[in-house]
């Protein structure tokens, strides 16, 4: 035979029906119709406290709702709204009391759309008081102090295994090790510790078959797990692997490139000041062989405090295809209070991509402004040369995701700790068990 799961009574103040779902474990029950808080252990339900709440709140999970959390069945039997006042601003959060006759009690808390699954812990954690930021250790896990505050009950509904009153106060301290949070509540009568685990709201909506979608959580909650932080390490590892591959390909290219010299000009001179057209000349035809590859046109000019400009046209004699480009060179040097200085370079290389094999010549038109009477220069053309730039760009692009994720991870931690007693202008280190880098040591008053 199964025992009844509820006791049916009526409110001593307004006569409305009251059901006790936790039977002998209920110590106080709030009448849903008049809000009176009644002594649940007294068969006459005598009054503990008349309705006093200034505001009415509606629980998001109605009392009496049964649902499943982490594979276990629970019924919502109590609901209270608690308020912390910090620097004149009040913050309200909800606490749902869940009951299962075979499992006892459990809580759900909700603040700004963030939910926690909370259970009372029997053994008090060990506290380390060294350093500015207290730490507590439970079952080998270290929790960092996050915030101390006061909690006041401002609204209650349903039944509770203690004598609840609107106006009940407790001093609280929260310690975090995302996704877990250890909370201490101190009243004159007792000190209790509870362990919360961050719970995605969708799990509650699904488990309790609530209509619609859960409200979006706002901000970053104290023990909200970071999606980004665990990713940073694996992305960094993956980056190192990809970078190694890119470097290996680059190295292979570096050794396999033919670097064939297809043309070397004789050492040439010209006298600046002549009309540019008169300096123009055409090289003899040279042959580019092998596969289509890049073609490097290197220019070396013996500049000394002057500049030169070379207008080039590479012409395929067979097809008439022409590549036109200009190259600037300048080299200056001197001495100032910091010592010798130089600027610019006497060498330049231009790389034309994908030049097919064939007979080519260069048309060259130099210009220059130099102090010396002559400018000595030479031109060297190489086929199939290795260039580093694409590989460097590739390495840089590959680095973007890990950098982005590391930045987001840092942003999330700094948003998390901004709400704590350790808020400071900058972010907070938080990966290890040491003190945070905050500069605030404010505590509760």
């Amino acid at each position, binding site marked *: *035979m*199964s*025992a*009844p*799961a509820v*006791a049916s009574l009526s409110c001593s103040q307004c006569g409305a029906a009251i059901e006790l779902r*936790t*039977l*002998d*474990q209920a*110590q106080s029950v709030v009448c849903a119709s008049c809000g009176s808080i009644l002594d649940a*252990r007294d068969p006459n339900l005598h009054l503990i406290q008349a309705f006093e709440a200034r505001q009415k709140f509606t629980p998001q999970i109605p009392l009496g709702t*049964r649902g499943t959390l982490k594979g276990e*069945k629970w019924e919502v039997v109590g609901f209270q709204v608690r308020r912390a006042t910090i620097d004149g601003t009040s913050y309200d959060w909800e606490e749902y009391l869940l*009951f*299962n*006759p*075979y*499992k*006892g*009690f459990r809580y759900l808390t909700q603040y700004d759309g963030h939910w926690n699954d909370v259970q*009372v812990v*029997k*053994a*008090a954690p060990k506290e380390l008081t060294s350093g500015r930021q207290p730490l507590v250790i439970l*079952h080998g896990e270290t929790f960092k102090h996050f915030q101390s505050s006061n909690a006041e009950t401002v609204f209650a509904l349903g039944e509770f*295994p*203690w*004598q609840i009153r609107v106006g009940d106060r407790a001093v609280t301290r929260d310690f975090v090790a995302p996704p877990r949070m250890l909370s201490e509540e101190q009243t004159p009568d*007792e000190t209790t510790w509870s362990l919360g685990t961050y719970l995605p709201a969708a799990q509650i909506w699904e488990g309790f078959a609530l209509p619609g979608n859960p409200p979006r959580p706002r901000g970053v909650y104290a023990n909200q797990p970071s999606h980004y932080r665990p990713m940073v390490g694996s992305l960094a590892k993956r980056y190192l692997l990809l970078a190694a591959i890119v470097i290996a390909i680059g190295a292979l290219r570096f050794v396999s490139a033919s670097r064939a010299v297809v043309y070397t000009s004789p050492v040439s001179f010209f006298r600046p000041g002549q009309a540019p057209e008169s300096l123009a000349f055409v090289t003899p035809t040279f042959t580019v062989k092998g596969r289509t590859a890049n073609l490097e046109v290197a220019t070396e000019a013996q500049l000394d405090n002057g500049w030169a400009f070379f207008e080039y046209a590479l012409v395929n004699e067979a097809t008439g295809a022409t590549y036109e480009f200009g190259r600037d060179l300048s080299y200056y040097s001197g001495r100032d209070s910091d010592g010798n200085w130089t600027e610019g370079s006497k060498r330049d290389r231009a790389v034309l991509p994908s030049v097919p094999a064939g007979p080519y010549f260069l048309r060259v038109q130099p210009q220059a402004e130099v102090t010396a009477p002559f400018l000595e220069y030479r031109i060297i053309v190489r086929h199939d040369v290795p260039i580093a730039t694409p590989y460097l760009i590739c390495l840089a692009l590959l680095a973007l995701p890990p950098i982005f994720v590391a930045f987001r991870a840092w942003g999330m931690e700094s948003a998390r700790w901004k709400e704590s007693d350790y808020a400071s202008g900058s972010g907070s280190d938080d990966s290890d068990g040491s003190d945070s880098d905050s500069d605030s040591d404010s505590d509760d008053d």
Partner: protein
Amino acid sequence: MTVRSAACPNCGATIEFRWSSAVQTVCPYCKAVLVRRDLDLTKVGTVSDLPPTSSPIQLGTEGRFGPDGFVVVGRIIYAYERGGWNEWHLRTTGGISAWLSDAQGELAVSTPAKSAAELPTAESLRVGQSYAIDGLLFTVASLTRARYAGVEGELPFESWNRSDALFADLDGEGDEPRFATLDYSDDAPVAYVGTYVELEQLSPRNLRRFEGW
């Protein structure tokens, strides 16, 4: 000698003992509290209806704790100013009495302390003091004056003559959540040492069934 069954001296119903050496039992039919004196059962009082409980344990629930099996043979209901709890009397296959307390769904199994070292008197008890019990250190966490609010089944002592008593709850040290209780119901204090348990750890059978659960 052992007696497996006896007739209720009040209503004549046959009372089957789960534990043959019980000192006190309650007739399940007429609720007469019966105390065994010599070979006879003597009615010493009557219990009123017990308050409905949400405890999943009931008389006849069986399970295992450590190496021993147990069966629930009796219960004492304690009430104090801010609540109450059930102490279920367990008879173990090892032949001893143990207690399974159920306070707001928190379960704990305790057995009488083996080494009865000198225990503090009720007058000298203070919260925060530490005592060694069975070689372990325990610290007094709270003092509760509780009354006997109801009784059922078989007990290893007479409860009828008891109105209220002082209980001291002591917390142990270390990661294992151990606790101790000092019971001042009798002239000499009795110490119990126990651990918190989850219901599943007891592999329970014959639990109470609740409508809809």
